[in-house]
């Protein structure tokens, strides 16, 4: 058995015949906490403290004409009673349920594709990864040009005889158009993680399966898929979180429309805080978004819980 360790301890060769030294008695919890300390401080200062402030502010109203006053849960009640917020919540949930499985599946399939021995796999793979480097403002402009009624997308469809589509100007197509845009940006990024996971699977497994007569598809489902569960789980959770925070394309392209069909929660929060100037209700909405995120991620953790 070869050791991959570059440090000079030669540990792997030992089988425990050396004299045992007494173990230190410090509690694993304390040591773990020592390692966790910087992160915990960062957490406290950079997340918990401002979140506490946000929670606090969400229970006040500080209007221009009415001054500061404590209103308890009134902002939350107003939110849930408001049809705009209900719409935003619905749109966000629909969006979450649709986009995450699709993006993870597409990333996975692309990862499988690009780990096969194709001509120029590395090049094509790099092209798919490129979009993550594009600043949100720029990708929004690019796609505004693609989705214009006289834009690139309709020009391409025209080549196939398909009539021009409204894309971002239609309440039915706008959300899906945004999803395509986000997928263009993100799919390559997640694909990278999955390729790493797939490359972890020893080739010998595939060879053995081929000898047994298993087809490529079969191998995919019986070997690849189960063995990349951890990276897949990571991608699903990370993708879900990042999709719940989407707002730049909405802000630049659709402003939540047409007719509220792309009014994602984060965008609603942003406009409520910065444009409408209603900071307190926006903070209440933030609290709700965080709870929704925690809930969804919690459910995912539970479903994907491996042996650890």
């Amino acid at each position, binding site marked *: 058995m070869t050791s*991959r360790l570059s440090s000079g301890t030669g540990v792997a060769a030992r089988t425990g015949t050396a004299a045992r030294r007494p173990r230190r008695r410090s509690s694993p919890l304390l040591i773990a906490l020592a390692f966790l300390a910087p992160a915990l401080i960062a957490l406290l200062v950079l997340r918990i403290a401002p979140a506490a402030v946000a929670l606090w502010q969400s229970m006040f109203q500080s209007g221009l004409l009415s001054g500061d006053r404590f209103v308890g849960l009134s902002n939350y009640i107003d939110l849930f009673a408001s049809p705009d917020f209900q719409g935003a919540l619905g749109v966000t949930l629909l969006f979450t349920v649709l986009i995450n499985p699709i993006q993870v599946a597409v990333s996975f399939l692309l990862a499988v594709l690009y780990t096969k021995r*194709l001509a120029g796999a590395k090049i094509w793979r790099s092209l*798919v990864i490129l979009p*993550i480097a594009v*600043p*949100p403002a720029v990708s929004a402009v690019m796609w505004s040009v693609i989705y214009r009624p006289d834009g*690139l997308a309709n020009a391409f469809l025209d080549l196939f005889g398909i009539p021009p589509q409204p894309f971002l100007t239609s309440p039915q197509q706008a959300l899906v158009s945004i999803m395509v845009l986000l997928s263009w940006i993100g799919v390559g990024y997640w694909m990278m993680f999955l390729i790493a996971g797939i490359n972890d699977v020893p080739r010998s497994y595939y060879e053995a399966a081929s000898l047994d007569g298993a087809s490529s598809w079969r191998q995919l489902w019986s070997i690849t898929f189960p063995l990349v569960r951890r990276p897949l789980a990571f991608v699903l959770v990370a993708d879900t979180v990042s999709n719940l*925070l989407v707002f730049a394309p909405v802000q630049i392209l659709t402003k939540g429309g047409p007719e509220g069909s792309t009014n994602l929660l984060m965008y609603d929060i942003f406009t409520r805080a910065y444009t409408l100037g209603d900071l307190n209700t926006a903070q209440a909405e933030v609290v709700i978004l965080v709870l929704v995120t925690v809930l969804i991620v919690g459910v995912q953790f539970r479903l994907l819980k491996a042996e650890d």
Partner: protein
Amino acid sequence: MTVNMTPRARGRAPRRRLGLFGTSVLGAAIGIAFLIPLWWTAINSLRPGAETFRYLNPLEWQTFLTLTPTFDNYVALAGSDLGRAILNSLFISLVTVIFGLAICATAAYGLAAFQFRGRGVLFSVVILSFLIPFDAIAIPLADMFRDWNLQNTFFGLILPGLGNGMAIFLLRTFFLAVPEDLVEAARLDGLGWWGVFWRIYLPLSVPSLIGAGLMLFLFQWQAYVWPLLMGTDRAHIVGPVALSNLQGQFAVDYGVLFAASVILILIPLVIILGFQRYFIQSVSTTGLK
């Protein structure tokens, strides 16, 4: 019977050849499809801004190619703040990666290498706390930073990017895969916990460290709302803000905007392409099983 790791036998049925050809074409087509918007942008950065929308529909060869490229747009950027913005962004992002990896890796280690009661709960708490959307708590955080006089400082710009829940999650996922007997043996050898971290976990997790580093880098590189709130005087301006500044009030010169975008994309591009090789190759535990 040993298993050879030979390339697939060439003499196989033609169907396999066809299948391989088919998937190659598919792979190429997908790659090209992803490239199209970027290509269009790059081509238009080589045209005067007035011509940006001239060749949209119907599709002509000019849509994707120009026989008279000009670098005027790039030259026009020479006098702008873009250069300084890029340097600032690079500095901030790199510092974030270094310190951020330190914080995230140690945290992931604390959550992966030790067995204690409530480990799962602590993990959940840490991750879930970092899930608090940054853009949403940016306002109270900006107020706090202002109280501490951190506005218009690099420190204030770097700080929020240091703790990244997803990076911790990623690193912990990989750390959990480090075999226990390796650690046992090292401990028996007298290696302290820090030594185990530094000499076993880290070297074995290079791909995940690169992945986490990439996440931290991209987060900072794309940061837009935070730098604005922290007050960006010209000495501290960052890339995305400089890009937005190119959008005038009354008109936008798209040629210049695209040129700036191309420049702004190049750096993360080079980093991603450069590192993806290391990231994707598995340096992990196949030999140790």
